[in-house]
C-alpha cells in the first residue's frame, strides 16, 4: 500500500477525532468543566446520524432499529432537479446537522441537574450518564439492534468513487478538492510571510532592504500562488474598494483569506478543466497542487527552524535515523527472542544518547522543543520516502523506485488502480477537513468573543463572574451544549467513516483518548486539537504496523501494551508539560495587549 494512502486515512481519523477533542476543549479548556462522559454525546451523534440515513427497516432478522429516515433519498425526491450525488451529500449534511443539535440538546439536559455539583461529583455523574447511554444501546434490541452491530450505513456519494477526471462529476469534485487545497496552502503561505514581516519589522529593516516582502523567494512564491490577486486586492484596498471586492479585499489585507479564496477558485477551475479535457490532466494538475503543498510545508518548516544551521539539521537527521535504525532488528530477524532484546537494547541506547545530548550539548539544550520536532519529522520523512524505495533500490529496480517516489509525492491522487484516480479517502479527507476548518473558525470566533471571555472567567473564578452580574450557570450550560454538539458532529462523521456501529465503540476509553488528545495538543488552544489528534493517530498507526511483527497469539497483548505506553506517556506529559505541546495561546484581552 502506498504510504500516501496511510497518511491520508490517518488524516481522516485525526479530523473527526480532532472535533471530539475540540468539544472536550470547549468544556474543560475554556470553561473548566471536566466531562468524563464526553463519549455519551459522541454516541448520540453517531446513532442519530445513522438512523437518519438508514433506509426504513426491511424487517430482516439481522438488523432491527427503531426507524430509518433515509434522508438522502428524501432530499433526493424533494430536490429532484439536482443531480443525485449533490442531494446525497445534502441529505447527509442535514442528518449531521440534526445529530449535532440533538447531541447539544442532550448535553444541556444532562448538564441541568449536574452542573451545580462539585468537580469530582460532576465527573462521576456524567461518566455514569455515558455508561447509561451505552447500556441502553446494548440492552434495547428494538432501538439500534441491541448488542449486534448496526450495519448498512451508506456513504454519501460513495458510488461515484474512485473518480478520474474524465467525467463531469469527477471534474467537479476535483475542482472542489484541488481548489480547497490550493486556497489553504496560499493562505498558509501568506500567514508564514506575515510572521516573517512582523519579525523583520521588529528587527528593523535589514541593511540590504530585503525586508520588502516581494523580494524573498517565499514572497515571490506567494505572489504566484495567489495569482497576483493579493497585489490587486492590496491595491484596491488602498484606494478604498467597494462592494463585494472591497469586503474581500478587507479580508485579503488582514488574513489573506480573500486572496486565498480567489486563487483557490481559479486553481480549482483550471484543474477541473484540465482533468476533463486532457487525458493526463488529472495527474498533471494533481502533481502541481501536491508539490505546492510540499513547498508550503517546507516554507513553514524553514520558518519554524529559523535559527537552525546545517549542524542542527544534520543532528536532528541523525537522531531520526538512529531511531529508525533501532527498529531494524524487528524487520530483519524473525524469532521473537532474537529481535525483542536487540530492539529494546537499541532503543535504550538511542534514547539514552538523545537524553545525554539534550542535557550536555548547548545547541540541543537551547532548542529542545524544536530539536524534538525536527527529529520526529526526519523520522517520518525517512519512513515516507527512502524506506519505501529501499527494497526496489537494493534490487536495482530504479523504475519502481521512481514510481513509488512519484506516487508518494502526489498524495492527492490514489495510484492503487490501473489509472490514477481520486479515491474515496481523499474525498473524506477533504469533506472532514472542510467541516473541521469551519468548526475551528467558528470556535475561534466564539472564544475570542465576549462570550468566550466570560467562559474563561468562569473557569478561573466563578465568584468574580457572579459579582459582575453574570450567571455562571447559564454560561456553563451553553458551553456544555457547544462541546456536546461538537462531540455529536464527531459521532456523525464517525458513523459515516465506520459504516458499522457497535456499542463497544462508545466505551469510556474514547473519553480518555479525547482527554489525551486535548492535553497533548494544549489545553484551551483550539488549533492544537488537530496536533493532538494527529500525533495520537500517528502513534497508533505506527504501532499497528509494529504489531504485525509479532505472532498472532500475542497480537492482543501488544495492542493492550500500546495503550499502556500511551497511558504512561500521558502521565509523564501531565507531570512535566501540563500545558501540552502548543500551550495555551496568549490572547489580547480588552484593554490592549500586555
Amino acid at each position, binding site marked *: 500500500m502506498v504510504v500516501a494512502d496511510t497518511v491520508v486515512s490517518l488524516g481522516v481519523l485525526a479530523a473527526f477525532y480532532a472535533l471530539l477533542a475540540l468539544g472536550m476543549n470547549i468544556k474543560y479548556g475554556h470553561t473548566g468543566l471536566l466531562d468524563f462522559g464526553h463519549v455519551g454525546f459522541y454516541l448520540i451523534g453517531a446513532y442519530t446520524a445513522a438512523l437518519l440515513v438508514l433506509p426504513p427497516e426491511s424487517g430482516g432478522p439481522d438488523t432491527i432499529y427503531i426507524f430509518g429516515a433515509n434522508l438522502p433519498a428524501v432530499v433526493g425526491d424533494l430536490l429532484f432537479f439536482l443531480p443525485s450525488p449533490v442531494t446525497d451529500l445534502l441529505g447527509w449534511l442535514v442528518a449531521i446537522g440534526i445529530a449535532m443539535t440533538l447531541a447539544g440538546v442532550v448535553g444541556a439536559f444532562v448538564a441541568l441537574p449536574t452542573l451545580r455539583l462539585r468537580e469530582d461529583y460532576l465527573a462521576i455523574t456524567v461518566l455514569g450518564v455515558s455508561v447509561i447511554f451505552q447500556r441502553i444501546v446494548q440492552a434495547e434490541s428494538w432501538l439500534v439492534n441491541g448488542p449486534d452491530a448496526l450495519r448498512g450505513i451508506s456513504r454519501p456519494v460513495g458510488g461515484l468513487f474512485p473518480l478520474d477526471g474524465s467525467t463531469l462529476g469527477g471534474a467537479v469534485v476535483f475542482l472542489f478538492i484541488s481548489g480547497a487545497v490550493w486556497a489553504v496552502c496560499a493562505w498558509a503561505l501568506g500567514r508564514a510571510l506575515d510572521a516573517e514581516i512582523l519579525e523583520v519589522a521588529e528587527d528593523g529593516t535589514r541593511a540590504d532592504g530585503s525586508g520588502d516582502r516581494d523580494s524573498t523567494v517565499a514572497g515571490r512564491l506567494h505572489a504566484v500562488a495567489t495569482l497576483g490577486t493579493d497585489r490587486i486586492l492590496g491595491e484596491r484596498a488602498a484606494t478604498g474598494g467597494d462592494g463585494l471586492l472591497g469586503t474581500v479585499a478587507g479580508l485579503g489585507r488582514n488574513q489573506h483569506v480573500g486572496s486565498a479564496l480567489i486563487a483557490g477558485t481559479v486553481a480549482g477551475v483550471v484543474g477541473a478543466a484540465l482533468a476533463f479535457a486532457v487525458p493526463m490532466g488529472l495527474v498533471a494538475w494533481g502533481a502541481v497542487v501536491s508539490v505546492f503543498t510540499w513547498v508550503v510545508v517546507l516554507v513553514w518548516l524553514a520558518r519554524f527552524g529559523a535559527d537552525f544551521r546545517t549542524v542542527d539539521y544534520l543532528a536532528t537527521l541523525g537522531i531520526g535515523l538512529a531511531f529508525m535504525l533501532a527498529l531494524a532488528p524487528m524487520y530483519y530477524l524473525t524469532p521473537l527472542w532474537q529481535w525483542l532484546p536487540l530492539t529494546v537494547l537499541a532503543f535504550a541506547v538511542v534514547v539514552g544518547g538523545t537524553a545525554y545530548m539534550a542535557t550536555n550539548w548547548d545547541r540541543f539544550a537551547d532548542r529542545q522543543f524544536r530539536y524534538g520536532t525536527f527529529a520526529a519529522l526526519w523520522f517520518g520523512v525517512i519512513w515516507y520516502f527512502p524506506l519505501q524505495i529501499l527494497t526496489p533500490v537494493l534490487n536495482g529496480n530504479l523504475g519502481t523506485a521512481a514510481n513509488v517516489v512519484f506516487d508518494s509525492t502526489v498524495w492527492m491522487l490514489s495510484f492503487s488502480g490501473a489509472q490514477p484516480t481520486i479515491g474515496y479517502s481523499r474525498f473524506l479527507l477533504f469533506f472532514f477537513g472542510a467541516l473541521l476548518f469551519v468548526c475551528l473558525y467558528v470556535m475561534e470566533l466564539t472564544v475570542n468573543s465576549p462570550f468566550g471571555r466570560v467562559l474563561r472567567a468562569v473557569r478561573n473564578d466563578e465568584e468574580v463572574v457572579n459579582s459582575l452580574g453574570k450567571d455562571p450557570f447559564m454560561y456553563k450550560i451553553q458551553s456544555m451544549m457547544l462541546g456536546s454538539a461538537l462531540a455529536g458532529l464527531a459521532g456523525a462523521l464517525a458513523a459515516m467513516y465506520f459504516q458499522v456501529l457497535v456499542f463497544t465503540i462508545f466505551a469510556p476509553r474514547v473519553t480518555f483518548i479525547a482527554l489525551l488528545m486535548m492535553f497533548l495538543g494544549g489545553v484551551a488552544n483550539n488549533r492544537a486539537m488537530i496536533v493532538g489528534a494527529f500525533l495520537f493517530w500517528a502513534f497508533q498507526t505506527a504501532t499497528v504496523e509494529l504489531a504485525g511483527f509479532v505472532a498472532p497469539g500475542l497480537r*492482543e497483548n501488544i495492542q493492550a501494551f500500546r495503550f499502556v505506553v500511551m497511558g504512561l506517556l500521558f502521565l509523564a506529559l501531565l507531570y512535566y508539560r501540563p500545558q501540552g505541546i502548543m500551550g495555551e495561546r496568549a490572547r489580547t484581552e480588552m484593554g490592549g495587549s500586555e
Partner: protein
Amino acid sequence: MVYSIAEVPNFAHGDLLTLGAYVALLVNKPGNVPLLDLLVSEGAPTTAALGVVFLVGAGGVLGAIYALGGVEALLGSWWPTRPPAAVAVVVHVLAAAVVGLIAALGAPSIVAGMVFAGAVVATLGPVQERFVFGKFRDKDVSLAMMLVVSLALAFVLRFTVQTIFGGTARSYSIQPNVELFGATINVAVVKFIDVYVSGAGLVLRVTDPATDAVLFTGAYSPVVLAGILVATVLAAYGAYRFRLGTRAVVGPYLLAAITGIVVLVGLGGLLSSGGAVPESSMYSSRVRLSILRAFIIVLALAMMGVLHTLLRATKLGKAMRATSDNRQLAQIRGINTERVTMSVWVLAGLFAGIAGVTLGFLFGTLTITMGFFLLLPMFAAVILGGITIYGALVGSYIVGLSMEVGLFAIPNLDATYRVPVAFVVLIVVLLVKPEGITG
C-alpha cells in the same frame, strides 16, 4: 477510605479489583497464566511455579509492610508497642512466609487465591500513591487534574492486566469438595432452605438437592415462635442499654445486633421440634444458598469487623479517623499523616484484592473491564454514605441491595441495567442530599 483520607477520587480503584481478580489466577489456575504456564506441566504446577507463587506472596506482604514506613517499618516501627528490631523482623518474615505458603500450597483453592491477591494488591496500592498521586499532589495540581491523572492510571492498570493476560475471558476453577474433619463437604452446590408458614406454625427445612438429604428440619408452633421473637428483642434491647453511653469498641447498636442474632439462632436451634412439611401453607418460599456464597457474606462481615476494630480499638485507627476528619488538625496533634495515608492505601489494596477475587467468583468470568464498571456503584455507595468510612459501609449495602432488588422489582429490566440502577440511586442522592447519609 482513600477518598476521605488521601483526598483523591480514585478512578483507578476499580482496576485494582480487576488486578486482584487476575492475580488470584496465579494460584487458582497457574497453567492458565502467561509466562507462569511455562513452569506448569500437565496441569499440575511444578515446584518452580510454586516457588514463584511463594516468593510473590511473601514479597507482597513484605512490600506492604515496607510501604508503611520504609525500612523502619520492617523493623517494627508501625507496631503499637516498641518491640526489639529482631523480634519484629522475625515476625514479619514469618507472616510473609505463612502467606506465601498458603498461596503456594493452597493452590488451587479460591480462598488461598484471595489471600494471595490481597497481599499482592496491598503492595501495589501504595505504589500508586508513591509514584503517581503523591508526586502530583506535591505539585499542588487542581482537583480536576487529579481526576484526569487517576483516570489515566486506571487505563494504564487495566491495559497492563490485558497485556499480561490477553483479552480472552477467564474464569476460576472452583473446587467443589472440601475435606473437613474427615467428611467431604460440597461447598459449591447450593442448598435449599425452605420456609413454610401454615396454621400450625413455621416450618424450616434445609435440604441438599445433590444428595437429597435433609440436613435440618425445624417446626415452630406460633407460641414458640412468639416466645423466640420476644426473647430476641428483649436481649437486643438489654444489650443496647448495657452499652449505651460507653465508648467501647463494640458499641450499643452493634452489640444489640450481635446479641439479637445469637439469641435468635440459638433459641431457634434449641426450641425446634421435629415436624413434617405441611401439605398446604399460607406462604412458602425457598432460598438457595451455597456454602461458598455464605462464606463470602461471612467474610465480608468479618473484614468489616476487623476494620471496625482497627478503627476503634487501635491507635492507627484513631489516627485514620482524625486524618479523615481534618488533616491539618491531625498534623497539629502530632499524627504522622503521611504514614496514615500509606496505611490507608495498604488497607485499600488489601480489601480491593480480596474484593476482586470475590467479584470474579460471583460474576463467573473475569473480564478486563469488570472492575471499572463496578466503579460507578462504588462511587455511588461512597457518596451516598457520605465519604466517611462508616458511611461507605452503609452506602455500599444500600447500593448493592438496590442494584439487585431493583433488577427484580422493575419488570422487564435487562440485567445489563444493573449499574445504571446504582447510578440512578446516586443521582437521586446527589440531588437530594449531596453530603450523603452520614455527611
